[in-house]
């Protein structure tokens, strides 16, 4: 608008000049308001109470696609989607009561039929008498903001899916399904397998369309040397973003006229392809394509897609590492199993010969040889135990140690074990102080294993005193089996650690007690598995008492 002339004569105080002045100030205000309205990026619209548009700014033209001359005089419903017409009725109702509507999120329609996310602020327009005669509406296009919100939500959900399982074939498929239709109309995931790009997921909200797309793919398989698209992304490990897929690209990708027709039928609008990278190597790609929704991808969309690909890469890598680790453990365990079996074979022969010779030397009272054969036999037993420990550790670690529970006579077991050990350690004095308990429920062999372990330790760590007392008594529904020796004892500070794997009390000045250090670990595990425990009472130089506590009867699991 042109600037108005200031005054007709130079005197500011003359009555006609002050009126002109007021008018001028007033008009300048109007002009500046008008320019604010015109320059606003938001749509500023006024309408009557019947919903007829009375003004339409540049922002409205831009956002809705209708020019001012096309919009003014029409009903506001031209920008309201059919399913939201009720909204307008509710708005008018509120306005008539003088209520202002602030930042209400909704969806509106463009001239080209596209839907957009908007934020509405509507206030009533009053006449000089205060009556409500219409409404002023400010509409902000929040499509971009909404898309970002959706992108982040998608990323968060997708991450949850990816980290939920090691089965990445399934999780990648779930992520691709999650992407449609909010983020894309089509989503595909490719992984490199044996140098080929294998499509592990292809999604669209219409399963028929997926079938149809797969048929096209079969008929016209992807050219792995293509300069653009998935093959190129796999080769270069760089993302590709097409806010609007150019037709030349489609023409170049088509293998023949029919193929071109099929591709054009899909109606490709926008695309982004991001590489999945592990250890600087591209192992796959995720593709997002829009068709029906006509959304155009922008650099911030691409960033989200790249972040998703990074997380997918991590998930896949984790799964692979886990699988390799499991395989390595299985190989190690197989090896240990075979090795210990192989080791036991020559040891078996060795023991037979040693014992036969021992028998002979005892019969012939050749005292020269007998003690040496005794020691040889004892060493063979130590060797046997080490090999068994080796096997036990690996089986225990992988949980392969099986438990077979039944009712068995604990008194009988104790007698058996003590008899066997007394027979092979004639120098030890094993004293039984046992009450009759009878049958208990548990794994007889494993409990026997614990008793053997405790007795062997008692003998091993009592170089000077050979008395060992074995006690058995029942306390309400628990039974206590204790093995007491009067040997070197264990300092209190070690009491917790001795039950740990491989722990051996370090006594450099004293004799070394060879072993793998797992006997007490396994014994305690067995006790715990029975619902019981293994405890120690001991102090240095005063011997030790190990007590195995077992429940008498166990409720079956």
């Amino acid at each position: 608008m042109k600037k108005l002339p200031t005054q007709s004569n130079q005197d500011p105080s003359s009555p006609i000049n002050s009126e002109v002045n007021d008018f001028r100030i007033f008009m300048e205000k109007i002009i500046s308001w008008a320019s604010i309205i015109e320059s606003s990026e938001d749509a500023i619209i006024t309408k009557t109470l019947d919903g007829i548009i009375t003004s339409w700014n540049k922002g409205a033209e831009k956002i809705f696609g209708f020019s001012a001359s096309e919009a003014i005089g029409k009903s506001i419903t031209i920008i309201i989607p059919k399913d939201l017409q009720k909204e307008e009725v509710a708005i008018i109702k509120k306005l008539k009561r003088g209520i202002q509507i602030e930042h209400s999120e909704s969806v509106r329609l463009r001239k080209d039929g596209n839907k957009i996310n908007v934020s509405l602020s509507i206030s009533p327009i009053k006449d000089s008498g205060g009556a409500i005669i219409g409404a002023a509406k400010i509409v902000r296009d929040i499509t971009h903001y909404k898309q970002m919100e959706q992108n982040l939500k998608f990323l968060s959900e997708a991450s949850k899916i990816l980290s939920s399982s090691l089965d990445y074939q399934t999780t990648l498929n779930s992520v691709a399904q999650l992407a449609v239709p909010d983020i894309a109309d089509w989503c595909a995931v490719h992984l490199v397998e044996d140098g080929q790009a294998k499509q592990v997921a292809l999604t669209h909200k219409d399963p028929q369309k997926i079938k149809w797309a797969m048929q096209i793919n079969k008929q016209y398989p992807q050219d792995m040397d293509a300069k653009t698209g998935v093959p190129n992304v796999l080769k270069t490990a760089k993302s590709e973003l097409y806010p609007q897929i150019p037709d030349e690209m489609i023409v170049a990708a088509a293998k023949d006229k029919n193929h071109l027709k099929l591709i054009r039928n899909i109606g490709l609008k926008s695309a982004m392809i991001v590489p999945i990278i592990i250890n600087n190597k591209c192992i796959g790609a995720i593709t997002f394509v829009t068709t029906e929704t006509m959304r155009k991808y922008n650099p911030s969309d691409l960033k989200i897609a790249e972040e998703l690909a990074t997380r997918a890469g991590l998930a896949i890598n984790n799964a692979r590492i886990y699988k390799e680790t499991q395989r390595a453990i299985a190989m190690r365990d197989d090896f240990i199993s075979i090795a210990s079996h192989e080791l036991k074979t020559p040891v078996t022969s060795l023991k037979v010969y040693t014992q036969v010779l021992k028998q002979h030397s005892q019969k012939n009272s050749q005292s020269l040889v007998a003690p040496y054969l005794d020691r040889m036999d004892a060493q063979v037993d130590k060797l046997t135990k080490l090999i068994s420990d080796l096997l036990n550790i690996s089986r225990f670690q992988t949980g392969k140690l099986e438990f077979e529970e039944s009712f068995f006579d604990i008194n009988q077991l104790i007698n058996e074990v003590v008899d066997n050990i007394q027979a092979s350690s004639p120098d030890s004095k094993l004293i039984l102080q046992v009450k009759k308990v009878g049958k208990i429920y548990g794994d007889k062999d494993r409990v026997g294993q614990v008793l053997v372990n405790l007795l062997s330790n008692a003998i091993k760590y009592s170089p000077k005193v050979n008395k060992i007392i074995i006690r058995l008594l029942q306390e309400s529904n628990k039974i206590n089996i204790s093995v007491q020796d009067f040997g070197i004892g264990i300092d209190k500070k070690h009491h917790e650690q001795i039950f740990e794997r491989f722990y051996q009390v370090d006594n450099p000045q004293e004799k070394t007690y060879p072993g793998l250090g797992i006997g007490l670990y396994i014994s305690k595990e067995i006790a715990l598995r029975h619902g019981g425990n293994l405890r120690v009472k001991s102090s240095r130089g005063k011997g030790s008492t190990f007590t195995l506590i077992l429940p008498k009867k166990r409720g079956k699991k």
Partner: protein
Amino acid sequence: MKRVLVVDDDLDILEALRFMLEDAGFVVETTPKNGSIVDKKIKDHPPDIILLDVLLSGHDGRHICKKLKSGKNTKDIPIIMISAHPDAKKTSFDAGADDFLGKPFDIGVLLEKIKKNLRP
């Protein structure tokens, strides 16, 4: 004199057991775990008791045991299964073994088990 048939793939163990069992007064036959050779040995020199090795990964020891226990002429011969693998015990009894002994074993224990399982 009682006859013992020892079935094991390891020649060293066969030799050691032959040595020990002959020393204890038994007549000893030995054979590797070949089904047809085992059958022939049993036919030619019926044993009073069989010591049979179990290899955990292969099933041949237990297979042989099952077969012998269901054979008309062999079902009454007591079988003691021996193995280096502790888990073999249960499956050995499942296959019909009369007794089980883990390797390496005490020769006294083996002799006792043989005495216990021999038919009078």
